[in-house]
């Protein structure tokens, strides 16, 4: 059952490539597959929540020897939210991409492979299989980020590919070293065996994995590739990458740090310092930018800092806050990029100096942007407020005033930078692309594609739902964090309660 969200899109990708002559068939296959995975992910989440974790041993080989797929609560939450994003962005992409990019350059099959890779990263219970899932996801993302391959895309795509390959090579190195020391790559088995290693060796492995997944997540000081490469891709693809790909890194960071290197409730000072710097540098970078997509890209980095902040506390409430923050961030960030993409498609530019009067030309866009931007800055009653409140409260409980102060300051700067976009793009006189004020002053309506508008509205609606349903969602995040902190439910689910292979 839990192999389906991986297998189905892969199969559909193959079929999609075969029928690439019939465009409507291709579109239908993508839509159907993405809808089906959303349904599957919902069922998996419901069952995983009831049973703590769903486990499947591929090929019937028992746990430490075969490849394990596992959907615990955290993994299932991530799977559901990612499949929803993939579906929504697909609808948006159908409205935005031109025929050349969508059909001649095979957007659909590659997109489905990306979906399979992301699902596999969330569901795998095996360190080497995680590497393979990463590669499936990354290879698809290399193609998507350079879709069309114009000058800017090739230049920045190269940075993206090379830095990710370097991280992958380090990942193989880490797997080799960990295998040499423990003789296993199964995550649950590793959790048992790593505990028997000398402290120094274990800490070294912990930091090695922190660096590798830190590159993918874009934490300080490994974030520099992100704001360079994301903005050049087509709008829906940037939105999906911004929302999901870095969060796959965050997911693996949280997974490995909690499962393999437990801190027994003691906060990790290193991770907290990294979190603070990530927040601060990200938001300062955003302030210096002039392009909507680039401002938003820098905000991804500063937001990653908040999630790492929750992880660094290593307590139940801290990790629950991080889990809720990830859910909130994926939805809000994706919708901001989708709005940005619509402004760019409508006016022909994303540079703040060239934009103006969008609020008058398309009031809907203004409304959508405002809701998402205020949520990102963490103003009540939006979901960002709930997420930040949870983190700040736990930070204060543990007497980490420094990081709390940084996070509040960064919130303020985030709000400032959002007002910069608002003032630059939405207010002012309607201008055309060349920067000339229109002679007749008539607010010229922007043409909005119904598919793009529908997808964005749905997403902003979802972010409102996240804030309205904060109580049950936060309770779910807490249950997910419980499994993460206690570790035993995860290990038992994979290796069996008494533990045939506990050693």
């Amino acid at each position, binding site marked *: 059952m839990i192999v389906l969200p991986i297998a189905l899109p892969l199969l559909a990708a193959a079929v999609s490539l075969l029928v690439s002559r019939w465009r409507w068939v291709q579109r239908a296959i993508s839509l159907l597959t993405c809808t089906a995975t959303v349904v599957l992910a919902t069922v998996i989440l419901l069952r995983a929540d009831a049973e703590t974790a769903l486990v499947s041993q591929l090929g019937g080989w028992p746990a430490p020897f075969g490849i394990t797929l596992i959907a615990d609560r955290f993994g299932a939450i991530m799977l559901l939210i990612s499949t929803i994003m993939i579906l929504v962005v697909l609808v948006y992409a159908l409205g935005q991409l031109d025929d050349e990019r969508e059909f001649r350059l095979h957007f659909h099959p590659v997109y489905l492979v990306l979906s399979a890779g992301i699902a596999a990263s969330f569901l795998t219970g095996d360190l*080497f299989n995680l*590497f*393979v899932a990463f*590669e499936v996801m990354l*290879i698809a993302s*290399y*193609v998507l980020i*350079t879709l069309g*391959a*114009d*000058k*800017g895309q*090739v*230049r*920045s*795509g*190269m*940075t993206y*590919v*090379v830095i990710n*390959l*370097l991280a*992958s*090579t*380090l990942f*193989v*190195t880490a*797997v*080799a*070293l960990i*295998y*040499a*020391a423990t*003789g296993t*790559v199964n995550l649950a088995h590793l959790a048992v065996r790593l505990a028997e290693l000398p402290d120094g060796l274990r800490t070294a492995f912990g930091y090695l994995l922190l660096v590798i997944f830190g590159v993918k997540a874009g934490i300080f000081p490994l974030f520099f590739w992100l704001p*360079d490469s994301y903005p050049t891709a087509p709008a829906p693809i940037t939105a999906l990458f911004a929302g999901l790909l870095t969060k796959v890194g965050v997911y693996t960071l949280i997974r490995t740090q909690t499962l393999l290197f437990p801190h027994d409730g003691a906060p990790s000072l290193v991770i907290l310092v990294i979190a603070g710097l990530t927040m601060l540098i990200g938001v300062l970078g955003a302030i*210096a*930018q*002039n*392009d909507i997509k*680039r401002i938003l890209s820098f905000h991804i980095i500063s937001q990653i800092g908040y999630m790492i902040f929750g992880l660094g506390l290593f307590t139940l409430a801290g990790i629950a806050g991080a889990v809720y923050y990830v859910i909130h961030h994926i939805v809000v960030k994706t919708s901001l990029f989708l709005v940005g993409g619509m402004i760019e498609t409508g006016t022909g530019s994303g540079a703040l100096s060239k934009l103006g009067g969008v609020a008058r030309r398309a009031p809907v866009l203004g409304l959508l942007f405002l809701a998402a931007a205020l949520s990102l800055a963490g103003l009540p009653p939006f979901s960002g407020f709930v997420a930040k409140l949870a983190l700040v409260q736990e930070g204060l409980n543990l007497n980490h005033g420094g990081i709390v102060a940084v996070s509040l300051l960064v919130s303020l700067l985030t709000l400032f930078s959002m007002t910069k976009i608002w003032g630059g793009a939405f207010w002012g006189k309607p201008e055309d692309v060349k920067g000339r004020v229109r002679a007749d002053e008539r607010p010229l309506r922007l043409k909005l594609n119904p598919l793009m508008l529908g997808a964005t509205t749905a997403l902003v609606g979802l972010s409102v739902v996240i804030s309205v349903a904060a109580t049950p969602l936060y309770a779910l995040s807490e249950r997910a964090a419980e499994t993460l902190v206690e570790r035993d439910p995860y290990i038992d689910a994979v290796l069996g309660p008494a533990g045939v292979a506990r050693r």
Partner: protein
Amino acid sequence: MTLALALVVAVLFGIGTYLMLQRTLTRVIFGLVIMSHGANLLLQLAGGRAGEPPLVEEDSPATIVGMDGAGVFVDPLPQALALTAIVISFGVTAYLLAMAYRSWVLHDSDEVEDDVEDRRIARMSPTTADTEGDIT
């Protein structure tokens, strides 16, 4: 772990890192290829001493070779892992070469270019204002 092989891994990583820090795209790609060779070789070494058979004989004790190297057969799993990693890096290298070629076609040069926005921001800084001619 054989010392000679460990040294080879170190040298491969060294060369790979050096090449990757160059500005020319082809060198960066060669650097990545050499480094992934190093990683794959390291994966091999995780399986046990070189030269041991990868098979379990009927009368051989079923112990996997540990870090002490005292065993009678090599663990075959790292070899399978390395094979997977090799295939992946082969595919990605092919993609990278295509990108490098595309970059050469578009830019007529093999060098990694500066980011336009980065240059704009660098010009805003007072410390680089007087050297502006060099940056652009």
